[in-house]
């Protein structure tokens, strides 16, 4: 409870600092949206000399952009699927009982995102090299799934904890076997958390660039395409459009995940 006094007003200085902070977080992203329409081709001139929709058409016709996008979607879907499977299993097991080594397992799960991305990337790359596994679509999936597990795990484990054990027992008392209890009792209760975790994992994988550079062979995902464009700008207007589309594409899953977890706060049997 924070409503110490009704009508407790924030000091003006605090309001200004918080407002400026939020503006600082959002203005750069808004700028991307303006630049997507600029007529300027050779520089990042501000204010834009004019506005045009031309570059949307040009970007639409670019085969390399489409290939990168499709590859990114494929990688993110497969990695998310794998992560959902592994993350859910892990969350279910971890929330059930206390057992020896439980703490180390939870550390192991968060390690891939707790350590700097470059460590994960170099480690995987050198391991693939040592094992003489050629870099391909599949090495990319392995890399992505590894750091996506934690996203699903975090979401699922929070929900599993709130899911009362007596629910499973009640299901068993009513004659359901383990699979039925899972299908009819557990799954509906954790479904939205899984979906939210999956979306966050998808967004993470779709956007990931560091581990990707280390585990990809010739494959070019959308972030890799963007990175090349950032290092050596060749088609600035097309990049502007691509950046805007990517920004929009990541907003949607986030808003959806937010809705899903917010509504899912009232879990059956939570008892709190």
């Amino acid at each position: 409870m924070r409503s110490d006094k009704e009508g407790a007003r924030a000091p003006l200085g605090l309001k200004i600092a918080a407002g400026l902070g939020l503006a600082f977080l959002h203005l750069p992203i808004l700028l991307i949206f303006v630049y997507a329409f600029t007529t300027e081709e050779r520089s990042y001139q501000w204010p834009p000399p004019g506005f045009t929709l031309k570059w949307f058409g040009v970007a639409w016709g670019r085969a390399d952009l489409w290939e990168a996008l499709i590859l990114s979607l494929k990688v993110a879907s497969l990695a998310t699927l794998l992560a959902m499977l592994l993350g859910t299993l892990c969350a279910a097991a971890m929330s059930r009982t206390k057992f020896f080594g439980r703490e180390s397992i939870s550390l192991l799960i968060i390690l891939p995102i707790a350590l700097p991305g470059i460590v994960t990337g170099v480690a995987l790359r050198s391991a693939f090299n040592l094992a003489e596994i050629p870099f391909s679509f599949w090495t990319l999936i392995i890399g992505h799934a590894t750091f996506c597990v934690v996203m699903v795990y975090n979401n699922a484990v929070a929900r599993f904890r709130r899911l009362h054990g007596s629910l499973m027992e009640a299901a068993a008392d009513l004659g359901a076997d383990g699979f039925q209890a899972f299908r009819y009792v557990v799954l509906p209760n954790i479904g939205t958390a899984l979906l939210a975790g999956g979306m966050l994992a998808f967004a993470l994988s779709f956007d990931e660039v560091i581990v990707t550079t280390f585990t990809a062979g010739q494959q070019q995902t959308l972030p890799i395409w963007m990175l090349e464009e950032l290092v050596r700008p060749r088609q600035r207007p097309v990049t502007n459009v691509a950046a805007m589309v990517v920004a929009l594409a990541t907003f949607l899953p986030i808003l959806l995940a937010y809705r899903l977890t917010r509504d899912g706060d009232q879990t059956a049997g939570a008892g709190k």
Partner: protein
Amino acid sequence: MTAAEIPQSRGLRGALSDWFWRNPGMTLFLMLLPPLLWLGIIYLGSLFALLLQSFYSIDEYSGLINREFTLKTYAELFKPANLDIILRTVTMAALVTVGSAVVAFPIAYFAARYAKGRWKAIFYLGVMLPLWSSYLVKVYAWKLILAREGILNWTFAKLHLTWLVEAWLALPIVGGNSLSVSHTGTFLVFLYVWLPYMILPIQASLERVPGNLIEAASDLGATPRQTFWNVLFPLALPGVLAGSIFTFSLTMGDYIIPQIVGTSRRFIGQAVYAHQGTAGNIPLAAAFTVAPILIMGVYLWFAKRKGAFDAL
């Protein structure tokens, strides 16, 4: 739901289900097996392989990797040029951490204590959306902002403050030819990109402060300022520490931001990237990655002692 809707289980499936029920230990083991195999073999295996390779060395003449245990590669880390890289990276990570704590605190404080209802949701999404927006898009946005012909210089020119930017850029270390090739630019982009990671834990720790604690403080005659410094701020510190884990670790491991916005002086990430790539010096790259792992290890140990993990 009535029992009639769910068919009674029989046969193999029923037997399997019964077996799971009777052997909770085995069930637990079977559930944990796939994720542990994955993370244990693929991830930990790779990490250990990397650590192992940091004890190899590279033959200076042939460029081949000599697979004999040696500390030579680690000794190389302490050459002035390499030590410089580590020091520069740690300094930048520390500055970014302090900077983001300063910028994040008012946002988190307002969101936790004053924002209600709709504003609460706006602040929450206002932090979540930038947090989850594409990293490269954010970096790209800053490339647009910091460009010589970009919006920042334009704004300063409109305010007749161009001389201020130029005076800043003339300073040693933080300055440079233009903002986009200076350490100041690198700092700004780091600050921007990792800021949400600092806001969320601070907000979480402030929200856990019970309201009656504040009331008690004012009942005992504390001014709002005293309440803030003596009650709220100490309780928010674990949150700041938790956020600093992210900002510190993320800054230390990044090699893309300093490559796109910054000077030609390297950071740890760039050194690792260069050594494992074109130079083919995996042992030195591996030794370089040990530096952030060790620093983070010490940092995490310290943070854990100060209770930062409860604030995550």
